[in-house]
């Protein structure tokens, strides 16, 4: 796997995180950890993004927003669940308004654990995500060839 094959653009959405993971996502992109040196750029437009960083668990109110952003993203795309809440629901798993991890709403490719997720874990997850992105792109190409 070569992480230099793509400059992954990421979109970030806070599902129902406590903010801790959100500021760590931003911290990973800012000086100190500086994921931008690996070509990772934060974008607000789902159509520009390759990687979807979701923090926090899903609930009735935001599940449609998470699905909407995911559906608007162009293939190939990768979803990274950032932090314990996004992976499983975390400490809030038995709250009445929490449905569970992000995988209850959309397929998740990489799980980045931690409460709050550490920027190192995030960068690691993004690099793993780029590898998955490459594989997905290859599959898409070969499917296109078969169709032609």
């Amino acid at each position, binding site marked *: 796997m070569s992480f230099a094959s793509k400059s992954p653009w990421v979109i970030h959405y806070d599902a129902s995180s406590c903010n*801790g993971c959100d500021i760590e996502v931003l911290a990973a992109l800012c000086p100190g950890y500086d994921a931008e040196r690996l070509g990772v750029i934060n974008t*607000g437009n789902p159509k520009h993004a390759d990687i979807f960083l979701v923090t926090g*668990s899903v609930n009735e109110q*935001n599940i449609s927003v998470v699905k909407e952003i995911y559906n608007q993203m162009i293939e190939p795309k990768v979803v990274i669940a950032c932090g314990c809440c996004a992976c499983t629901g975390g400490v809030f798993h*038995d709250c009445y308004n*929490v449905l569970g991890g992000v995988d209850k709403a959309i397929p998740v490719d990489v799980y980045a654990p931690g409460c709050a997720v550490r920027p190192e874990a995030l960068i690691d997850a993004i690099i793993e995500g780029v590898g998955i992105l490459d594989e997905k792109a290859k599959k898409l190409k070969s499917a296109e060839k078969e169709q032609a």
Partner: protein
Amino acid sequence: MGKKTIIPFGPQHPVLPEPLHLDLVVEDEKVVEAVPQIGFVHRGLEKLTETHDYNQFIYIAERICGICAFGHSMGYAETIESLMHVEIPPRAQYLRVILHELSRMHSHILWLGLAADAFGYESLFMHCWRLRERILDIFEMTTGGRVILSAVVVGGMVRDISNEMLADVRTRVQSIHDEYQQICNTFLNDSSVQSRLVGVGVIEHDDAVSLGMVGPFARASNVNNDVRSLGNGGYGQLSDFQPTLDSGCDCYARVKVRLQEVSQSARIIDEMISHIPDGDISVKVKGSPEAGAQAANTLEQPRGECYYYALGNGTKYLDRMRMRTPTSQNLAGMAQALAGCDLADVNMIVLTIDPCISCTER
């Protein structure tokens, strides 16, 4: 005038790290009315007091919000301590204030960065966040966590910070504060900052009072409501505390208040470390709150006054744990500040209340 149009803003929006939805009613480029809609982050964690006892709930309380995490665990612990009539050792009080003021520094510098990003000053944003990393380094050195510190327990602190380490913290805070002066100068003297902020989102003093605004948002309208002045806990040991006030009433005044509060926090940390007494850091808390016992507590969070209320029922589980967080107090003020503003100023005004949606919705 054109006809009224509604523009939806959020919940996914580049300027907001958190989901907040606004229906902006606009006429041409002027916002007539802003209707906030919340509920995207609601978890219902107050109900978890039914399944978690008062000792276990502290890690839930800390996760109400990841930016003011330490403040919430401290406010919750103080509430339970007054509910159960526990007196904590002075060293623990001092340590709490030191970590709480560090949280305020990191929260305000984070906010200054986001504000700089909102008015398009990307390099200033990066500098603020670079400086903030150094405060997180102090957290990591002293407690092991960057965001969620897990340093407070009902009855005191989880672990001590040695005097040598505190001396190191003192020099680090000093050097962060020295470097911070450059950022401060840019905010105060750069004409591009002023041209985006002066006269934007004005809320007069009387409106601020009647809307019940709290925190730096209200203090920028000259409302003296810093609950640190009450001297709860370790704050009572401060030799002198004057709340930071500004009578500008606009976005620029809010930036100035937060800029000064960072320096104020640095001074408080310095004073606290120089006077910290030796001794125990926690007392054992045994038993359970009496049935019907009530306790209330206020704490000045980075975003303003946070109010805590607890009701015991004779068991280890609380009957009710209630927080009233600063952002929920400030949303009415935000809607008022948005009415009549330019559409391009919306993101700036939304940011100046320093919205913390996960606190608000819990």
